[in-house]
């Protein structure tokens, strides 16, 4: 039976959709199973068409991106209402994404940099006409509406999306594996004692040897193993973009905890090595961290 599917984009980069398109010829097997009722990037149905659909009339609603604008919030609520099964698709959707790093500042500070202070700006103003307005703080989608399936990744690989889609189409559950990137990584590992951390551009990352053992900040040990260790395979440290393994609530806190254990350095040296813990330890999931949530509460109170 052909299933009705909607693919909705909130504020995001479209990488998850591109990853789906990158099934290439395998799309020819998947497409006949699907009746695409809403996918603005590819198909010409309008928002009004989506809003007019009966409740729960869409089998699978895939939501990419996070709520940076009030329009995103509206769209998220609409697709939740119209979908039987809502899938938070990609790290933006599950954890807030890289734009969650913006939560370090107030929305006023973000607007100021972009629309008032930028070097090339000649006529500064905050645009307001026929535009939705911004949310004060990025909250992850699962904190805004109930989500049925989560599929993190930045983006999820074509295989990840195909697997999830197949499970959904055949009515089977889709659970995230309790694995880390290390479980998929081909590098040779030794006992972990780091005497000095190196930044990515420093020295030379030797192929074949665990990148963390070499002193580079590779977060594979604390990151869910879904991607096939794509980055370490090409001599590049994992940045944790798929988020934590299941049941870890705060990705960065877990990473800090582990680093404290393996770093054979004075705590002054360790502090000096990581002047940007938010950027280093919370690449796509700062919006899901305890501190971001506390900050969100404080700012909401202040605005009232």
């Amino acid at each position: 039976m052909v299933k009705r599917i909607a693919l909705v984009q909130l504020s995001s980069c479209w990488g998850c959709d591109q990853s789906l398109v990158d099934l290439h010829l395998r799309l020819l097997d998947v497409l006949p199973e699907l009746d695409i009722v809403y996918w603005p990037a590819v198909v010409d149905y309008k928002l009004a068409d989506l809003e007019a659909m009966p409740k729960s009339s869409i089998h699978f609603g895939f939501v990419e991106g996070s709520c940076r604008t009030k329009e995103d919030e509206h769209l998220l609520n609409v697709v939740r209402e119209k979908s039987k099964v809502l899938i938070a698709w990609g790290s933006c959707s599950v954890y807030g994404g890289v734009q969650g790093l913006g939560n370090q500042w107030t929305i006023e500070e973000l607007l100021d940099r972009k629309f008032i202070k930028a070097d090339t700006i000649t006529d500064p103003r905050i645009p307001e006409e026929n535009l939705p307005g911004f949310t004060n703080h990025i909250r992850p989608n699962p904190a805004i509406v109930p989500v049925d399936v989560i599929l993190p990744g930045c983006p999820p690989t074509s295989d990840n999306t195909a697997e999830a889609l197949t499970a959904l189409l055949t009515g089977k559950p889709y659970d995230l594996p309790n694995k880390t990137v290390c479980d998929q990584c081909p590098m040779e590992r030794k006992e972990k004692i780091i005497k000095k951390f190196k930044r990515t551009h420093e020295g030379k990352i030797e192929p074949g040897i665990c990148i963390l053992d070499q002193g580079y900040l590779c977060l594979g040990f604390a990151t869910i193993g879904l991607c096939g260790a794509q980055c370490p395979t090409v001599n590049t440290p994992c940045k944790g973009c798929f988020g934590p393994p299941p049941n870890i609530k705060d990705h960065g806190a877990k990473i800090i905890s582990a680093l404290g254990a393996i770093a054979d350095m004075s705590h002054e040296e360790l502090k000096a090595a990581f002047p940007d813990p938010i950027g280093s330890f919370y690449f796509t999931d700062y919006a899901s961290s305890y501190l971001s949530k506390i900050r969100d509460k404080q700012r909401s109170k202040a605005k009232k």
Partner: protein
Amino acid sequence: MSKDEKTIRIAPVTRLEGHGELTIKLTKTGKVKDVQFNVSSTRFFEKFLEGRFAEEAPRIAPRICGICPEPHHLAATKAVEAAWDITPPPAAVKLRRLLINAKQYSSHALHFFALAAPDFLAGPFGDPALRNVVAIIKALPDVGKMALEVMQFGQELAAAVGGKAIHPVTSTPGGMLNPFSEEKRDEFLKRSEKAKEQTLATVTLAKKVVEDYWDPITKLAVTPTYYLGMHNKGNLEIYDGDLRVMDPAGKIVADFKPKDYRKYYGEYVPNHSYATHIYYKPDGYPKGIWRANSLARCNIADKMATPIAQEALQEMRDALGRPIHATFAYHWARIIELVQAIEEIESLLKDPDIVSTDVKLSDVQPKKGDGVGCVEAPRGTLLHHYWTDEKGIITKVNMVVATNNNIAGIEKSLMDAARQIFEDKAHESLKFPDPIIK
């Protein structure tokens, strides 16, 4: 809005990456009063890049766009290298050229087949349910299969060089983290033969579309603007070169190094779009509104950098002149660039340096400074400007992303099209072919 005015809202604009709506205001006599292209989201990368290690910018910035992450990856790398006075090994530059051309190839194919072709194959009056690539694949399976294979070639080559196609990772200040293996080079060189044949078949298809739609192409939304693009000694260039600005009369009014962009780039903040309007600063706004992207690059360049593409460019210029203002000619220019991309890819794969292991400097020192990294993304000239402190931490960012260069020009061409359609009823008098997909 007065009682007899009418507002038409198209929400969202489809077959577009991102968030855009159109607001068209008509007077009570049916004249087009205003057309707004409302880009309705932005994520503030310029701010949240502050405080980050600059060498991580090539990992963060690609998240601006899932279709063109490679240009961001490379512009970010170049900006840091400029700030820290670093020159990467020549073989690393060749790998980066291979990466950006692989992406140019797959992105241009995606645009032509999935975003643009539905309009031409189903026709502008076709059923919305048929105006999409899924319908194309169903109705024309051979074309559909070829489209998928062409995109696959570009994406898989990008992944082979960049680690992954969506959000590549191997470019870093100082070079590349991973060399290109001989095995991969052999594989892709072999595959490039078929890709080239398929590219030429795509050119044939594109020329048929141009022929069938000649009337609308030459009459609808022929919008004079300035043009911005990159060149290398006059040849169309997408990785590293100087920038040119051409005025609507076809005169080159500026030719400059990207680091001097602030003399030439003006950024106007409209009240109705989160994406700003970029224009040629010396001539003011709105007169200096420029467009970037394929047609602009083909206008400012003296010629293409590769032979078959150059023949194709000459054909377009023989038909439409120079500069070409016809907005629909963007599709034709895009296919000409598709040809240059596959020719560049072939040439780089044949170069023995492409498998060199000398692709990264081992001693890279951060320093206090600022640098501009500029490349051509498929949608236009992409510029990243970073300031770093003595530890190499980013303190300030200014970015003019590719699409930004086109927002004002899009609005201008929409105004022209809206007038022609609402006031002159052009859709009734223009000659359209019978649609192929019904």
